[in-house]
């Protein structure tokens, strides 16, 4: 009986996934994907991973969905895009996918007992950091190098997107994000929501130290507010040569690096924090990272420059 909700959720996810892959229209497929993203965040709550659920909803479904919808709009009316390949290839792929699925399912069905875990070790050292949210501690202390390098990935992705700017337009602004039928309601939303959204974003970042939430979730909410304002045409996307923009993008990684190197003097090595200063340092790093994430996500959605610099 208690399995019923989980079973229903799993079924819904799989149906939505099949729909996403098999839909003939590409916009239907994107909508299917967004639905999968939202259902998956419910699944993450059921898996007791609220931090991941928030990230999945904000980044996985939300930001990725927006990106894909914009791509659909730019690609225009679509020719039908169904899978239309040789039957032999389809059978071969089907067999391959089934083999992978069966192997994975077998492994999932016969887990190791007792399940190996790092939870006790992670919990044992949390006192040295003084934060209440174990996931934040893993992201910013135990495995801080992953998080640092992942910020570098984001900066590189932004460079990669900007690299697609045609040469004469370099330094200019991305094309307007204005929705096709932008109108009263959107403008109204873009005027009312951002103050609330910014409060919620900051709350998520601040709260992330001790309870679910954190840099990514908060940063994405901030980015969403910015994108909303741009889509309602209240603000234009900034020119990519702007020094302020560039500095905001690197702010997070730079603060993180400074904190990391400070560890050589004030603690015992790169990315280590002295126990009494750990919390303020981490909160500072998180705030800087969130700001950078917000700017990077916004600019990634906006795309390469489409207008020459003024």
């Amino acid at each position, binding site marked *: 009986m208690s399995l019923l909700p989980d079973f229903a959720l799993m079924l819904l996810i799989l149906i939505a996934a099949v729909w996403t892959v098999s839909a003939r229209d590409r916009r239907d497929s994107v909508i299917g994907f967004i639905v999968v993203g939202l259902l998956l965040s419910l699944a993450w709550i059921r898996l007791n991973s609220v931090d991941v659920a928030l990230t999945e909803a904000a980044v996985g479904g939300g930001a990725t969905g927006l990106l894909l919808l914009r791509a659909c709009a730019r690609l225009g009316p679509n020719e039908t895009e169904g899978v239309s390949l040789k039957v032999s290839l389809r059978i071969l792929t089907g067999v391959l996918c089934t083999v992978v699925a069966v192997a994975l399912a077998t492994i999932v069905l016969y887990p190791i007992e007792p399940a190996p875990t790092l939870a006790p070790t992670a919990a044992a050292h949390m006192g040295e950091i003084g934060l209440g949210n174990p996931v934040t501690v893993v992201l910013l202390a135990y495995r801080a190098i992953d998080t640092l390098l992942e910020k570098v990935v984001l900066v590189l992705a932004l460079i990669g997107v900007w690299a697609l700017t045609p040469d004469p337009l370099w330094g200019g602004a991305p094309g307007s994000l204005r929705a096709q*039928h932008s*109108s*009263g*309601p*959107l403008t*109204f*939303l873009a005027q*009312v*929501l951002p103050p*609330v959204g910014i409060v919620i974003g900051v709350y998520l970042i601040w709260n992330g130290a001790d309870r679910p939430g954190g840099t990514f979730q908060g940063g994405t909410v901030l980015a969403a507010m910015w994108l909303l304002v741009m889509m309602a045409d209240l603000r234009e996307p900034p020119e990519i040569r702007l020094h302020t923009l560039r500095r905001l993008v690197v702010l997070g990684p730079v603060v993180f690096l400074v904190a990391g190197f400070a560890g050589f003097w004030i603690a015992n090595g790169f990315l280590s924090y002295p126990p009494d200063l750990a919390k303020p340092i981490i909160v500072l790093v998180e705030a800087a990272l969130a700001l950078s994430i917000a700017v990077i996500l916004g600019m990634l959605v906006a795309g390469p420059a489409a207008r020459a610099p003024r």
Partner: protein
Amino acid sequence: MSLMADTLTIAAVSAGLFFFLAGTVGLLRFPDTLTRLHALTKADNLGFGLIVLGLLPQSPDVASGLKLVVVWLLVQLAGASASQLIAQFASKGGPSA
């Protein structure tokens, strides 16, 4: 006290669920975009409002109660704006899906 709160919760949430059900049926059965939208928003506003109302007595402290109210307000705002946009798009001759 707790009995009364629980009764209120059960009643309000059940009523909310009923409106959701009605709205979903409308979404599936009504012929065109505008009437479907009508069914959906009516159900959303009432159904979701009732569920939040029903959950309020269960919140452990004032802060979480306030959060519930904020969630309700945000959903109202998002729902109203989104349905306006959809309606506008539909009346401008978008796909009558």
